[in-house]
């Protein structure tokens, strides 16, 4: 179907585009440097796992019981305790942001604790204050404090030779990510963000510039056919995106030791599909917006930020209000993030992959039709 002349024209255009990318330091920065920076920030810098949380322990009357409890905090990886003699001092430190939580053992703690039996006496109270501004961190902190309390309680009961006083205890196991490291889910999702950057943002900017300068029309009146033209424009970006996929996955496995359990051909195939959708969106943005300024802003607003916030990359989609959940359905990154997290951590789980591939195919169809319609309109 493709004759020699057409192939030659296509090749010429691809070479022109590639040269344009290589010549402009800003495209190089977006295509090569930003992905690496992102990868290092997410692989190494950013973490949702609280560790070494600074807590203040207020002991009003030190004795063996308070010592054993604060000892449990010392031993926990999650906390770096510091000690205060009065609650006022500790609250001051909490206000100033020096500590994130307070564990307050009042002077009656040991007395209540030791005289307590299930049928008489008063329970000893561990009063806890946390800074709730970062609510997620606060919730995790409260959870870890509970964990320390449980361990300590078990040891305490055993030492006194009594049966554990808690009726039901819970054991838990986290599948796919036993060490519960947030890096293992952030880094795979990042692949989708990086490909969105190249497919939508970079493409939108570059093509918008051609419209801006009028060189688009100049190209269109050449003997190039529309399809050839669009293909020639997009092929270099497609390969750039795929290269970033391969490099990112390779680096995340080698440097950040994120396990990859799925099959690679599936990753390449779904990656290519996602790249096509991103390119269609980038092209659509450049056609609809009239200038580079607008194209740049629109690309950030409708492709990059949603890929970050509405894709399930960090925030859980099921917890969003229904209207927003509906919006997430037109965010292609949503489907690719689900595929990536599954392929990396869980393997080839076909029901998940097929459902998301189908959604990406539908989006590809819709955006391609929109591109075709708007190109024609724009030229008239």
């Amino acid at each position, binding site marked *: 179907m493709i004759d020699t002349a057409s192939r030659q024209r296509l090749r010429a255009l691809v070479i022109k585009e590639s040269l344009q990318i290589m010549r402009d330091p800003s495209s190089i920065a977006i295509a090569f440097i930003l992905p690496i920076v992102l990868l290092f920030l997410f692989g190494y810098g950013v*973490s*949702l796992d609280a560790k070494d949380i600074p807590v203040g322990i207020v002991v009003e009357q030190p004795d063996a019981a308070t010592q054993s409890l604060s000892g449990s905090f010392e031993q926990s990886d999650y906390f770096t305790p510091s000690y205060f003699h009065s609650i006022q001092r500790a609250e001051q430190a909490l206000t100033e942001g020096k500590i994130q939580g307070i564990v307050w053992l009042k002077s009656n703690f040991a007395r209540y604790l030791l005289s307590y039996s299930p049928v008489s006496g008063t329970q000893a109270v561990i009063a806890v204050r946390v800074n709730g501004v970062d609510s997620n961190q606060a919730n995790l902190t409260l959870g870890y404090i509970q964990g320390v309390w449980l361990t300590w309680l078990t040891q305490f009961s055993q030492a006194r030779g009594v049966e554990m006083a808690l009726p039901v205890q819970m054991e*838990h196991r986290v599948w796919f990510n036993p060490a519960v490291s947030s890096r293992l889910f952030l880094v795979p999702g990042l692949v989708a963000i990086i490909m969105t950057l190249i497919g939508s943002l970079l493409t939108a900017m570059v093509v918008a510039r051609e419209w801006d300068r009028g060189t688009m029309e100049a190209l269109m009146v050449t003997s190039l056919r529309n399809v050839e033209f669009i293909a020639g424009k997009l092929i270099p970006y497609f390969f750039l995106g795929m290269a970033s996929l391969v490099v990112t996955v390779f680096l995340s496995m080698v440097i950040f030791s994120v396990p990859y359990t799925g099959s690679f051909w599936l990753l390449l195939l779904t990656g290519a599909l996602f790249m096509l959708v991103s390119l269609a969106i980038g092209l659509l943005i450049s056609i609809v917006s009239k200038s580079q300024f607008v194209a740049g802003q629109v690309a950030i607003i409708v492709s990059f930020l949603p890929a970050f916030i509405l894709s399930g990359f960090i925030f859980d989609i099921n917890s969003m209000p229904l209207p927003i959940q509906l919006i997430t359905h037109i965010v292609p990154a949503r489907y690719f993030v689900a595929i990536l997290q599954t392929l990396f951590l869980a393997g080839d789980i076909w029901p998940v992959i097929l459902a998301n591939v189908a959604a990406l195919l539908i989006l590809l169809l819709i955006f391609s039709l929109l591109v075709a319609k708007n190109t024609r309109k724009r030229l008239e």
Partner: protein
Amino acid sequence: MELIKETALQVRLMWSQIVALAIKEFLALLRDKSSRFILIGPPIAQLLVFGYAATYDLNDISIAIYNEDRGIASRGLVSRISGSPNINELVSVQHESEIASLIDNRDVLLVLHINSEFSKDLSSGRSATVQLLLDGRNSNTAMIALNYMRDIIMQFNTQWSAERQSQGPPAIIVSRAWYNESLHSRWFIISGIVGLLTLVVALVVTALSVAREREQGTFDQLLVTPVPPSYILIGKSLPGLLIGLLQGSVIMLLAVVWFELPLRGSIPALYLGLFLFLLSAVGVGLMISAISVTQQQAVLGAFLFLVPAVILSGFATPIVNMPEVVQWLTYIDPLRYFLVIVRSVFMEGAGFDLLWHQYWPMALIAIFSLAMAGWMFRHRMY
């Protein structure tokens, strides 16, 4: 006398020149209908969409329960779980073999396994153990869900002990959260979005203003006018500053009115922070302007600064969780300080005294970036 008159005249001239330049900049920016729209519409839409979307609270968890126990005790636990407002769907598992595919296919976030000895253990006074399996593909979600389940089990324990005239464990935890008493993650995120959107607009408006002229060739014309270059830079930075102030105010107003974020602290302290923050954003914008030749480079350059700045600011993930080396990097990020100011003033009710340590680093960043931008314009290489 003569000297004073002359100085006064010069000052007047300077002012009129700067004002004229600033007006010209505003006109250039606001002339185009779509640029006008892009400054107002999207930030508000983003605040609304992301304000609702970005939450760390789980509302609709789907869970499965594999209950092998036939006793009353386990039924009590199950009904307590199904009554939880955070849990939306409860799948009942009949065979162990179903568990794997439910989690694999993301049908449920977690599976609770109650073994057949559960009621017997409890009624004979022994501790009963339940197992929880969680999908760790999003580990943060898994941890939050784990905490919810822990709370449910704790409540069950308290009730169980109370019903049997036993008072439960010898020591209990009574916890209270300060500043955000019910731990809404929305308050945290919205206050972050205030900083994020303000940064985006100030940076992009400033970064593009020079690049646009350079691409159209009018920047050289501007340079050969009798106006000193420093005035040109001041004129270029005013639109970003003013639009940033305006947009920041609108977004903060919406945060209070629409999202019911408490505003407990000092508003002047907040605005001093906003002003210093915008100065440093404009300085960075001008630096980007100085090295970009085309608008494309300016937008991409702004973006190249924006993404790490947002990630390192503590917008979505806490700075204290970062490795030490990365934490040092956050000290040169103006957004880091501004987010602390926004969150402290809004939720903690802070005033000038508590925020001093946030002001001076931003002022330093502003002075450095503005001076650097001036230097770069004078020593432009291309």
